[in-house]
Structure formats: structure tokens, C-alpha cells
């Protein structure tokens, strides 16, 4: 099992949350102090560098117009880490390809970072969470189609090495596509994709050998998604070999009391405040979901884990915390409950969790937990090529 350090790079230094209608999209930028922002960017990068030194991998993401994540351009932080680290893998999860105007620009950025890092890059592509359509102004009714068209185009741009080709798709038209540089890895970096309920999308990713990742979901639902992935997996020979990834909140501490205190700090992320129109823009989810919304039984995809006790979250495998041996035990339990998985994506920092506590948690995990779970077997995808071996 591969372990990854992750923080959304929050800007938690906000006025009392009950005085703010939202932390996303429309929160005024006068509440962002660039001096505090400078400190935060540098500390979050330092924490990634520590994780790298201690043998962990580095996971990055991006969001826009939100205090919950100031990593607004993940390729920039990935490029910094590509140069400042030398061991761990770097994954952007992901590039919001449905929300960016030019997929070829993403292909170039990723190829450059792959070269600078000497092949340590994994490339995630995401459809983008609902509120992202506002900052990007992308049509919320077609983000899935844009995602797949973009992936097809980037994949071809990375691998077509014989000179220019043209592309006239539904969303993008480009002429004379001819990527310089091409990626360091062959045929191209591993592709990761995210999801939270659409089994068709998960199987489509599995069939193409992509890694499938999901975040902060109850373990029964994770198993359902991972089973779907495993049933359709086809090893297409991408570096890393596909697989499944799950993200819980993780806090490792020297004592039970400190573990619980840190875990409560991480829950800041789950309580991020937003307005209803940002949670369910028109047509982002299928009509059937919006019928439920009109009946009041569906309020957006991210609500299931809000306002829950830390005991409930721990039982669901969404929040993992404790002394090192307890953390290892919880990871093994989760591994068994979901039928195994390949990548443990750990949100080890959120909200106000200080850099001292974050670094202690990263260190304890790397030194005392990782050795206990590192050798958990890769999941065995069900496909002909694997069966034949």
C-alpha cells in the first residue's frame, strides 16, 4: 500500500464562521491577508517536503474562490515539489479538465513536471465539485462529457510523437497539436480519476487502467465502488498499474487525548460552510437526484458526513486517529472492510491544525504506522492479463 500526505491548504484565519454566509465562491478576498497567505503556502510546502523525506508520497489538489483551499493552481505547487523533493511520488488529484479552457495546456504542464521530477508524477483528472462551475463558468450540465473528451485528447497528445494532429471535438477544437516536451514516463504518467456514486464512470476508468479514488465515504459505499472497479479493471500497462485509492482524515498522536484533539481539528474540513446554490448547480447531478432534491431528500453530494460525531466518523473509516498502533489497526480494518485498496490518501492537515502538530502526526505515521501497513497486498483486479500471470 502506498501512503500519501495531503492537505487542501486551507486559509482558516477567518472571522467567526457564524458571521459568514459561505466560505466558498463569494467570500470577499479582503478576508485573505497575503502575509498570512505567504506563511501558509510555505508551511504547507514544508510539510510536504517533510513527508517526502520520511518516505511518503505527496498529493495535491486545487479549488477556486474558496478559503477551504488556497492551492488554486496545483501545477504550480507540483512544479515546486518536483524540484524541491527527490524521492516521493507527486499526484495532482486532480486537474479540473472539465473546467479549464485548454486541455493541451494541461498536457504541457504535466509533461514538464513529469520531466522535472524525473518521472515521479501521477496525473489525476477530475470533473470538479459542484461549486467549481461558478469560478470556471463551465456549463454544469456537461462536465462529465467534458472530462472524458479532455482525457482522450490529453492522452493522445502525450503519446502521439510523429508530429502534429488536429482535434475537432464537442468542446475543444485545436490545430497542429504537437507536444513539446512529452512526458518522462512511458507511455505516459498514470492517470487517476475520482468519483462518488456513478458506477458507470468508475468502470469506464477501470477499463482504461486508471487509478480510481474516492474521498470521505462510508466504508460500505467504498466497498461497493471498489468492487465495481475491480470487476471492470483492465491493466493497460500504465506506470503503477491502476488500482484503488481512498481518502480518510488521519491524525496520529502520542496519546489518546492528543489524537482526539487533533481529530476534532481535522473535522473543520467537514463543516465547511457553503450556500445551497453552490452545492447543487442546475444539471450537475442527473434529473433523478433533483427529483429527490425537490422532495427534500437530497441536498448535495457532500452532506452525508457533515455534523456527525467523531466516533461515527471513526466507525465509518472516514476519520482515522489514535496512537500509531491504533491507527495501523484502523487502516487494516478499513482495508478488510472495503476488499483491499492500493493508495491511502491521508488528509493529515485541515483547518487550524498547527504545523507542529501536523509534522508530529506525519512523522509518527511515517515511522511507526507505515511499516505496519506498507506490505498490505495490492488488490487483485479481475482481468485476463492478471489471471494469466
Amino acid at each position: 500500500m502506498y501512503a500519501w500526505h495531503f492537505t487542501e491548504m486551507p486559509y482558516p484565519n477567518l472571522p467567526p464562521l457564524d458571521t459568514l454566509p459561505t466560505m466558498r465562491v463569494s467570500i470577499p478576498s479582503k478576508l485573505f491577508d497575503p502575509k498570512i497567505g505567504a506563511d501558509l503556502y510555505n508551511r504547507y510546502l514544508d510539510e510536504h517536503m517533510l513527508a517526502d523525506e520520511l518516505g511518503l508520497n505527496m498529493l495535491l489538489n486545487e479549488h477556486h474562490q474558496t478559503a477551504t483551499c488556497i492551492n488554486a493552481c496545483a501545477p504550480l505547487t507540483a512544479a515546486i515539489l518536483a524540484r524541491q523533493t527527490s524521492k516521493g511520488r507527486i499526484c495532482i488529484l486532480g486537474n479540473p479538465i472539465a473546467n479549464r479552457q485548454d486541455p493541451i495546456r494541461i498536457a504541457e504542464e504535466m509533461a514538464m513536471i513529469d520531466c522535472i521530477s524525473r518521472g515521479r508524477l501521477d496525473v489525476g483528472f477530475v470533473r470538479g465539485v459542484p461549486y467549481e462551475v461558478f469560478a470556471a463558468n463551465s456549463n454544469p450540465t456537461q462536465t462529465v462529457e467534458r472530462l472524458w473528451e479532455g482525457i482522450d485528447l490529453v492522452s493522445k497528445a502525450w503519446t502521439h510523437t510523429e508530429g502534429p494532429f488536429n482535434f475537432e471535438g464537442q468542446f475543444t477544437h485545436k490545430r497542429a497539436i504537437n507536444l513539446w516536451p512529452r512526458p518522462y514516463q512511458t507511455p505516459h504518467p498514470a492517470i487517476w480519476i475520482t468519483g462518488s456514486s456513478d458506477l458507470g464512470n468508475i468502470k469506464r476508468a477501470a477499463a482504461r487502467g486508471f487509478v480510481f479514488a474516492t474521498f470521505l465515504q462510508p466504508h460500505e459505499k467504498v466497498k461497493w465502488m471498489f468492487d465495481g472497479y475491480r470487476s471492470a479493471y483492465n491493466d493497460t500497462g500504465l506506470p503503477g498499474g491502476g488500482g484503488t485509492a481512498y481518502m480518510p482524515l488521519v491524525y496520529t498522536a502520542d496519546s489518546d487525548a492528543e489524537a482526539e484533539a487533533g481529530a476534532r481539528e481535522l473535522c473543520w474540513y467537514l463543516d465547511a460552510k457553503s450556500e445551497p446554490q453552490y452545492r447543487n448547480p442546475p444539471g450537475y447531478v442527473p434529473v433523478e437526484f433533483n427529483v429527490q432534491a425537490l422532495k427534500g431528500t437530497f441536498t448535495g453530494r457532500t452532506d452525508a458526513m457533515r455534523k456527525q460525531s467523531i466516533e461515527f466518523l471513526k466507525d465509518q473509516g472516514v476519520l482515522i486517529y489514535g496512537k500509531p498502533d491504533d491507527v495501523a489497526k484502523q487502516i487494516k480494518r478499513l482495508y478488510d472492510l472495503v476488499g483491499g485498496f492500493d493508495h491511502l490518501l491521508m488528509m493529515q492537515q485541515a483547518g487550524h491544525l498547527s504545523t507542529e502538530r501536523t509534522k508530529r502526526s506525519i512523522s509518527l505515521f511515517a515511522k511507526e504506522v507505515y511499516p505496519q501497513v506498507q506490505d498490505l497486498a495490492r488488490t487483485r483486479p479481475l482481468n485476463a492479463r492478471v489471471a494469466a500471470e
Partner: protein
Amino acid sequence: MTVAERIENVVNVHGIDIEVRTYGTGSPLVLLAGEEQLEVDSPFVKELARDHKVIMPSPPGFGVSGRPDWLTSPDDLAYIMLDLMEILGLENVPVVGCSLGGWIAAEMATKNDSSFSRLALIGAYGVKVGGPFDVDIQDLWIQHPSKVTAMKWRDVEKSKRDYASMADEQLSVIARNTESFARFCWEPYMHNPKLKHRLHRIATPTLVIWGENDGVASTAYGKAYAGLIEGAEFTTIPEAGHYPQIEQPDAVLKPLRAFLA
């Protein structure tokens, strides 16, 4: 008063199934409803059906009409509605459009208004009259739902709908209308940059009706829109927001009937 009976039909328009409702039996009139289709079975449509056979098609994506992926804008929908009029053999008929339906009707008239006898636009979207930093039409998707309701309605009570009592089929239509509205109008937001430069082509006598309390697009916007159509009349309806035909049907019918007479 006899209440007009509604007849539902599906017409295949060059491969797209278009739902068509018909009310009444008089001389034909085409009514293009707003994006929420609040006009269906409304007092407004029933009253119009006393004088006319009101033909009310659901454009692609609305009601249960089909929505192929190649349709991306109200400009596209206008061609389908023109094809429908031709298939139904409608000639020399008045066309009334509300909100998005008004936008589609204006697009249709710029392409070919030879089968139009009159054009009435009620609170229509479709043009941009200000500069890049001006908000001509309030953003309905980025604001809190309660604010959006207050912008659309003079009397918020009239906006209330009892979703709990509705069947899933009815709720599906509401959800689908919301989705299709975004599909076609997300960007450019609520306007076609070209429409302004095509409105001069409309030769049909035109009436533009606007709610005085329309908080989505102001009466100044409505007046500017009317000003782009040669000879268009402009009238406002007191005590009405973005849907004057729903909030004040009698006050809308009065100038509308005079115009259609």
C-alpha cells in the same frame, strides 16, 4: 365560463419528439412558455383560449420534448420551433413568448417571420444592452434561492409550489426544465450576442410587455430591447415581477388582446 380542454400531442420534428399542448378552438395562436412552464393550465392560457386555439409546444429539453446534444442555444431551439410551425401548417398566426420563450420567439422572428401575424414578448431574455461590466439580467444561478425568488416575484406567495403533492413524473419535468434552462442559457448568460444585430429583420408588428417589479431584468432593459425592434410598442404591468402573465393575467391580457385584435 367554459374551461378550455387541454389536448396533448407529440409531433416529430425532423427526428426530435416535440410535446405540443393545445387549448381552445378559435383562430390559432402559438404560445412559447417560460423556462419554468408555469403557463401550463394557468388562468392566463385558459383565458387566451377563449379567443384562440392556443398551441403551446415545449421546446427541446423542456416538458417531455427530446433534447439531442447538438442543440446548445435558444438560437438552435428557434429553428426547431420554426420547423414545427411549418409541419403544423401554421400561417399568419400570432406568436406570444414569455421569458425564455420570448427569447426563442424573437430568434424565430429574426430568421423568418413570414408566418407571423403578430409578435408579443413578455419579460423576454435574449439581448445584451449594457457593457461587459453591466449586469443586464441578474444572475439567477449564483445567488441564494430566496433572493432569486424575490427577484422573480412581486408577490412571493404566488411563487410557492407544493412539490410534496406532485408525482415523480411532474417533478422530473421541473428538474429537467431547470437543467435545460442552464444547458442553453449558461454562457453567454441569457443572451445571444448576435440577436441584437438581427432584430432589425423583424417586420411583424411587435408588442413588448414587462412587469414593473421585474427584479431579474428591469423595465429599462425591456424598453431598450423593444427599442431594437422597429416600431415595437412597449407597455408595463403594475404589481408584477418577471412573470406578469402569472401574477397579473388580466392586466396582461388587456393590452395583449387589443394588440392581437
